[in-house]
């Protein structure tokens, strides 16, 4: 089972470090990261393996969203199936 973590907002120091630390705590393995900076906007998408998180997945999602708010960023954590369903035939 994999989930997508999307981080959108103003670029600052330590975004990747903070997000990956939270993932590591929850035993979620980071499988892929892409990031772009469009004008001033930082957009990072990360694919994480959540099969070892078990029931902690929802706590992980909450933690990431909260961390995002603290850094002034929007963080969305969504199961990858939604993207596969919407963008693949």
């Amino acid at each position, binding site marked *: 089972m994999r989930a*997508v973590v*999307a981080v*959108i907002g103003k670029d600052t120091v330590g975004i990747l470090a903070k997000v990956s630390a939270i993932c590591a705590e929850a035993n979620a393995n980071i499988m*892929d990261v*892409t990031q*772009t900076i469009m004008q001033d906007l930082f*957009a990072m*998408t990360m*694919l994480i393996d959540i099969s070892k998180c078990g029931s902690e*997945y*929802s706590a992980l*999602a909450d933690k990431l969203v909260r961390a995002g708010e603290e850094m002034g960023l*929007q963080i*969305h*954590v*969504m*199961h*990858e*199936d*939604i*993207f*596969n*369903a*919407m*963008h693949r035939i």
Partner: protein
Amino acid sequence: MVLSSNDILETIKMIQEENLDIRTITMGISLLDCIDSDIDKSCAKVYDKMMRLACNHVKTGEDIEKRYGIPIINKRLSVTPIAMLAAAAKGSPVKFAQTLQKVADETGVNYVGGYSALVHKGFSAGDKELIESIPEALSVTTKVCSSVNVGSTRAGINMNAVALMGRIIKQASEATASDHCFGAAKIVVFCNAVEDNPFMAGAFHGVGEPDCEINVGVSGPGVVRSAIAKMPGATIDEIADTIKKTAFKVTRMGQLVGTEASKMLGVPFGIVDLSLAPTPAVGDSVAHILEEIGLESCGAYGTTAALALLNDAVKKGGVMASSRVGGLSGAFIPVSEDAGMIDAVNRGSLCLEKLEAMTAVCSVGLDMFVVPGDTPAEILSAIIADEAAIGMVNSKTTAVRVIPAIGMKEGEMLDFGGLFGSGPVMPINRFSPAKFISRGGHIPAPLQSLKN
């Protein structure tokens, strides 16, 4: 990465900025095994069965919201038309409405639909009692919705039922006059009602459906509007193509949520209803899509054509995205629930007659519109008869949900709050149809050939 960042960001933008959501997950529950000649025993069976099947419905919806990051606005239940239970039981059918309310309160669902009767060919035992009890049932409950099917393409239109429903709607409005006449907003009068509709107020669980199933209604007018806004110089067929692609994505999301909910609840998956259901929120309006296509204001000449194009493209895109499509499937045009429609009425570009024409080419019908409180019952009946005739002749579902605003006149605003929005009181044609309505009887089913 297998997934592209653009796709991910597009989905997030749809949800965050364009109000993409799952409008409802509705669990349909058959109550045929709860029929009993003792009404109290029957109510107890209804309560037990619904609580057993639906106790985790709301929690499952919330878990799915969290897992996929998609808002699911409503969790609802629909049941077998209560008239069938009332037929066997003696006593006031209002007891069933109170039981449904109790289930709604205890399970936490937003609405329960199915305080309904199907009388398109005539009244059977229980039907009249149930219909007569609708005003009381809707004034003593808050979460129960009612619907009555008065016509069909195969049966014609039951004009006795049409006459009765005009009076019932007026009474329901009067009984809830202190509560924004909200009783009338919870009644739908149908022609060609569908058995698997997940949307309120017209949801009921048809007798041809399985014992229990999950139906999903998607939404996304904002997503469609914003997709069209990105193509200012496009031709109409390019626009139709874009609507199809957008509807495909939206429906796939509905299919995913429905499949997941059915797995988690251990209940078969019924259908995805491919609908563009607006809300009063800014950017969630079907009227604004029509305006984006190129009309100065919804209701202008060209509105019916633009809506026909929109409705058809939504279906074409959605059908490929889901293996099971059903319900009402099309664009909804409720006046009070759509910011663009409200503005169009207020600026004088949308009148009742144009709205009626629009219902001939889109999903459902004259929905959530407000008329003056002193509108005679026979005019309400005649509005219902006209709308039912459109459905009957065109082999489609049509419906009327009209709110006579007690004590209000044309031009005033009736405010319901929340998802139901607020409706301007619309002017009506006051020439009397009283004699036509008082004749009673039946409009015979229309010919299915020689179509002109």
